[in-house]
């Protein structure tokens, strides 16, 4: 945004009584999303080298679970102290990020040694560590990272107890709750946004690489038969419900009644996608990310939703839970239903007098 547009925007806010004084200086600490992504990746690379350093230097300590845990915890605490003591320093931010990720790596090593092949307690403990770091270490990029990996740890725990099919719908439920309430978090909005982006990243990667009963799961976590039929049905049902529920919540937030034409058409469209999600569970979640991103004026989220949808459809081709013919019928019928809904939007809606609604 140019300085002139910024001044004009500020003047509008002052006129409405939402702001006072001169236009604020642009805060250099705030970076565009792609700069934050770059910093996150660089921090991760730095962490690998620091982990290598610790691995060689403290090999004998890391060999014992307690030693690795203590060393990892010290690194994480040190990083949190660094974030809190130098909140505006670029160097402290990057150093803290790399040290913290290296520390988390050491804690993972310790938990792996403690619990061996028993995954769920180790994963839950790691999720607890990530939660503490999320709350105590005030760095946006770091919070996105720990939110993402913390949710991933919970997903691994659910996976281990046979509830893999509930992972994505549950994550999407929390995602929806966080982003729909984005404006209600007050002074904790930045923290909530970081958590929301972490959830979005988790959901997108889950959709593209790991969702459902196919691909990775077959190789990493054994046969799908171990998951009960009930869990499969509940997972499919929740996946189908994700988008319609998100739309209902959004309509409520915007003050649009379900008896209005706007509400009815939005919900009907969501239900069409929701029905498709029963067999193609990622579709509804990806569209929910897109819709919520649009509703909050957040183009990064919308972009993630589009990428997740395209990525999911690409991997859906290889999914083994249905034949290509079944998947083809599902997609063509859903697509035609959506196009029909658009036809209705044009013919039925535009031919009616406009109504007063809030969104």
């Amino acid at each position, binding site marked *: 945004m140019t300085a002139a547009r910024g001044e004009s925007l500020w003047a509008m806010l002052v006129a409405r009584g*939402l702001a006072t004084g001169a236009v604020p200086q642009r805060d250099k*600490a705030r970076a565009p999303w792609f700069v934050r992504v770059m910093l996150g990746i660089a921090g991760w690379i730095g962490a690998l080298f620091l982990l290598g350093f610790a691995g060689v230097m403290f090999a004998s300590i890391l060999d014992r679970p307690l030693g690795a845990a203590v060393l990892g915890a010290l690194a994480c605490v040190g990083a949190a102290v660094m974030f809190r003591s130098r909140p505006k320093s670029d*160097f402290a931010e990057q150093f803290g990020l790399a040290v913290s990720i290296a520390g988390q790596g050491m804690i993972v090593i310790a938990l792996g040694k403690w619990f061996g092949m028993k995954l769920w307690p180790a994963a839950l403990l790691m999720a607890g560590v990530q939660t503490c770091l999320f709350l105590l270490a005030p760095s946006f990029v770091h919070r996105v990272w720990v939110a993402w990996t913390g949710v991933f740890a919970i997903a691994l725990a659910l996976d281990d107890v046979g509830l893999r099919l509930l992972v994505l719908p549950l994550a999407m439920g929390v995602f929806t709750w966080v982003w729909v309430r984005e404006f209600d978090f007050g002074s904790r909005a930045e923290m909530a946004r970081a958590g929301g982006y972490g959830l979005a990243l988790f959901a997108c990667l889950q959709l593209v690489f790991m969702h459902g009963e196919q691909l990775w799961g077959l190789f990493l976590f054994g046969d799908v038969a171990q998951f009960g039929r009930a869990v499969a049905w509940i997972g499919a049902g929740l996946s189908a419900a994700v988008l319609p529920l998100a739309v209902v919540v959004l309509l409520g937030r915007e003050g649009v009644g379900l008896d209005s034409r706007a509400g009815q058409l939005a919900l009907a469209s969501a239900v069409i996608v929701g029905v498709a999600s029963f067999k193609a569970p990622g579709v509804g979640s990806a569209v929910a990310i897109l819709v919520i991103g649009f509703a909050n004026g957040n183009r990064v989220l919308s972009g993630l939703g589009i990428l997740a949808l395209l990525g999911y459809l690409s991997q859906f081709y290889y999914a083994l839970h249905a034949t290509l*013919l079944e998947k083809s019928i599902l997609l063509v*019928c859903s*697509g035609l239903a*959506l196009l029909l*809904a658009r036809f209705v939007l044009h013919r039925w809606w535009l031919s009616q007098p406009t109504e007063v609604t809030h969104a």
Partner: protein
Amino acid sequence: LTGNNINARRGTGWELPNLAANGKKAASMRNSRDEIVDWVEQGRIQPENLRFALDIGGALPVHSDWRGFLDRFLLWAGVLFVVAGAIFFFAYNWDSMGRYAKFALAEAAIVAALAFVWWRGLDRVGGRAALFAAALFVGALFALIGQIYQTGADTFELFAVWAAAILPWVIVARWAALWIVWIALLNIAIALYFHTMGGIFGLFFDPVRQFWILFALNTVALVIWEALAAVGVEWLRDRWAARVLATTSGGLVTALALYGIFDSKDAGGFGVPVWLAWLGCAYFVYRHRISDIYVLAGAVLSVIVVVSSFLAKHLLGDDAAFAFLLIGVIVIVMSAAGGWWLKDVASREAA
């Protein structure tokens, strides 16, 4: 501030939005949002007023935006699902359906899509979506021909012929998204060519020639794209498409530099010099000619990856602990300095 104020600004109309105006509105929405969130985080606006501020700043969608969003979503999701479903259907190779019926179906889909294009025209979003569908149906038709007649053609030929067949439509459409699809088809054709001709091991052990050719293709496409956009070709000015090309080109030249570092014979010795030249050009063009911090951020990341790899190759030896620590600190310093520089550039651009 009352709800009525917001509702008055939001309006109640559901008129179809203009495409160009919609794009400008979207850019404005994004910028306002970032700025207002920034001000809230600085404490200059009360956090509880964030929603109102975003509303007043035009950062949140209003009635016509929602109407346009629903319209576009239903159209594009509908087209995407139908096209994907059609491709899945032909890939299934259903025995119960005769070959002529399959051909009739694929060709009917193309004809129907083109008829829609003819009816709606390419200036309307419906016409564009139909052309997009027709371009993808052509690929399905070629795949069907190969499947039924067992032509013996390699997969790379399918993608190459597909790209050649839709080129006239791509030219006529004057639409960035379709050009990106076309360039992606060329990339896939080249990658599959090396996969087929180099054998299965060729892909994994000798990808350097493939990387050079793909790098050349994407870099030439990027240069032409930026040059035409700079001389005023309006439909090429969407930054997302140029960023896709820049990311691909930058990723490939970074991979070539890594090959140059770890196996200079494989990269022909030119990997690092070409990478340096690419960096210099990227800095000059995207800092001084076309301001695009996205590409600069990618270049910074590329520098971090290549420098850390270079140091790792030469320093990780007997005293590995010190080398790991040194490289880790260098990576952190480079990324912190890079982040500071990028934020500084962003601030200057905004001033």
